[in-house]
């Protein structure tokens, strides 16, 4: 059976060029970059080359890049770091209702410590309104943290405008760009970004390595105490193989972005059109325009997402859902609720995220397999039965 991996927003495979680049740093050039002999010097040099590549990908200066253990760590560091650094100036933070939990749970932690957080609402399109942001700004606001692109519905925020507003008010602007880097153009200078989080495993690098960009002049303190790595700002012996891989992966992703995003956008639109035209009572979640090239998120009314994932899995198709069962709680995705979906429509969501391995053939295979699966689940659904009775009483006896 064909295996169709449609969950690239969850993680990507490590592409061969990246794997090849990182391998020598496990058993050959395994030196600690803080040491002074040859294999250590080679590791140190490699570390700085990777930093150059990450900086180039973002339009940043290499001295503004700090490697971390994940995108989540970068988010935690940026948000807690700025909140605590400017605590005396103010204790108000602005974020959005659709952030990743790495941001939301960090904000909740700060709220418990006496900080105030305003979570900006989003429209049906999953995008904040800059006017709302402007209204939320207070004299004691020290940080705005709003993601570049959403991991569930792919909506892209007006980053440049948010950054310009933050700058005009003297507020630090951080963005979680984990889903965006390597997928859509990012330039920290032209987009007025002060801090940015990214992760390697969303762009064909390995898991366990990320980075935080910190604009020169922001005196962010160390978050992890220990040795003097990362210019004293992030202790812990550097994950050299991971960092090398991040550098290689980000370089490749950015150089291939234009062509790849054109290819994926076409596949994405074919999927959206195909799903909406072949399955009734189905709608697209999020913006149809300001959307990541690889993201499809649809809701099928009357069915529940996890059952759908299980049946797709039986056909070799791997995707994800915002249903409660897949979120590990009793509530469906906070993102889908934030764009105004009632619970049962959020439970019936399906996210497909395309990537380098996705082909036209896979899209066609999916579009062939999907309709009978949805029909089968609807035949099993008491909600659908109820709907049929209401909409067409003659069709259902009793």
């Amino acid at each position, binding site marked *: 059976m064909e295996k169709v991996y449609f969950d690239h927003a969850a993680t990507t495979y490590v592409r061969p060029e990246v794997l090849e680049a990182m391998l020598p740093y496990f058993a050959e050039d395994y030196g600690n970059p803080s040491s002074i002999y040859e294999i250590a010097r080679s590791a140190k040099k490699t570390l700085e080359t990777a930093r150059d590549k990450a900086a180039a990908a973002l339009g940043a200066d290499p001295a503004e890049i700090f490697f971390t253990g994940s995108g989540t760590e970068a988010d935690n560091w940026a948000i807690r770091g700025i909140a605590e650094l400017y605590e005396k100036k103010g204790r108000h933070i602005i974020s959005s209702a659709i952030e990743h939990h790495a941001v939301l749970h960090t904000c909740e932690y700060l709220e418990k410590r006496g900080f105030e957080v305003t979570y900006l609402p989003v429209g049906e399109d999953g995008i904040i309104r800059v006017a709302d942001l402007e209204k939320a700004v207070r004299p004691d606001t020290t940080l705005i943290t709003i993601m570049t692109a959403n991991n569930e519905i792919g909506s892209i925020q007006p980053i440049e405008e948010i950054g310009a507003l933050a700058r005009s008010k003297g507020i630090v602007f951080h963005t979680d760009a984990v889903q965006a880097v390597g997928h859509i153009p990012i330039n920290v200078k032209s987009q007025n970004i002060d801090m940015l989080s990214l992760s390697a495993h969303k762009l064909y690098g390995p898991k366990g390595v990320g980075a935080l960009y910190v604009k020169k002049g922001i005196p962010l303190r160390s978050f992890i105490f220990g040795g003097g790595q990362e210019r004293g700002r992030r202790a812990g012996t550097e994950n050299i193989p991971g960092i090398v891989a991040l550098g290689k992966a980000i370089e490749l992703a950015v150089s291939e972005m234009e062509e790849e995003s054109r290819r994926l956008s076409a596949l994405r639109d074919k999927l959206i059109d195909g799903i909406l035209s072949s399955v009734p009572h189905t709608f697209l979640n999020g913006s149809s325009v300001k959307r990541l090239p690889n993201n499809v998120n649809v809701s099928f009314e009357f069915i529940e997402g996890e059952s759908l994932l299980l049946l797709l899995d039986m056909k070799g198709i791997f995707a994800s859902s915002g249903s409660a069962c897949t979120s590990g709680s*009793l509530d469906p995705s906070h993102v889908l609720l934030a764009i105004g979906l009632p619970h049962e429509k959020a439970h019936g969501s399906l996210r497909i995220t395309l990537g380098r391995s996705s082909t036209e053939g896979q899209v066609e295979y999916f579009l062939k397999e999907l309709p009978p699966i949805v029909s089968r689940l609807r035949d099993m659904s008491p909600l659908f039965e109820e709907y049929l009775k209401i909409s067409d009483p003659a069709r259902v006896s009793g």
Partner: protein
Amino acid sequence: MNPRNVGEIEDPSGVGTVGNVKCGDIMKVYLKITGEGIVEDAKFKTFGCGAAVATSSMATEMIKGRSIDDALHITNKAVMDALDGLPPIKVHCSCLAEEALHAALWDYSQKNGLAIDGLKPPVNDIEELHEGAFA
């Protein structure tokens, strides 16, 4: 995922619906009960995750051929055991399956003016279904 007993029963002796759309699980169980009080057939429809479908399938499978008294003793634990256990977060699915059987038996008892020992009226949130589901 290959559930048994999916569907409806025409002129059922009892029907029970439990759960709510908010938590994402709704189970509807149909029972056909003979004059002698034996569950002749059981079918279900479920809106829910894999575990909800599996527990519905197992519960309806277990109730078939049983007397009403026996049927009352099909607990969520028995359903879970029959499925070789469920992860903690899915235990509530087995509770719903038990409740759905009981709700269908309650409906049967009400329709036939029977008092069944140990059977209580179902507690369900199905009102929410009508409030929100088709808005």
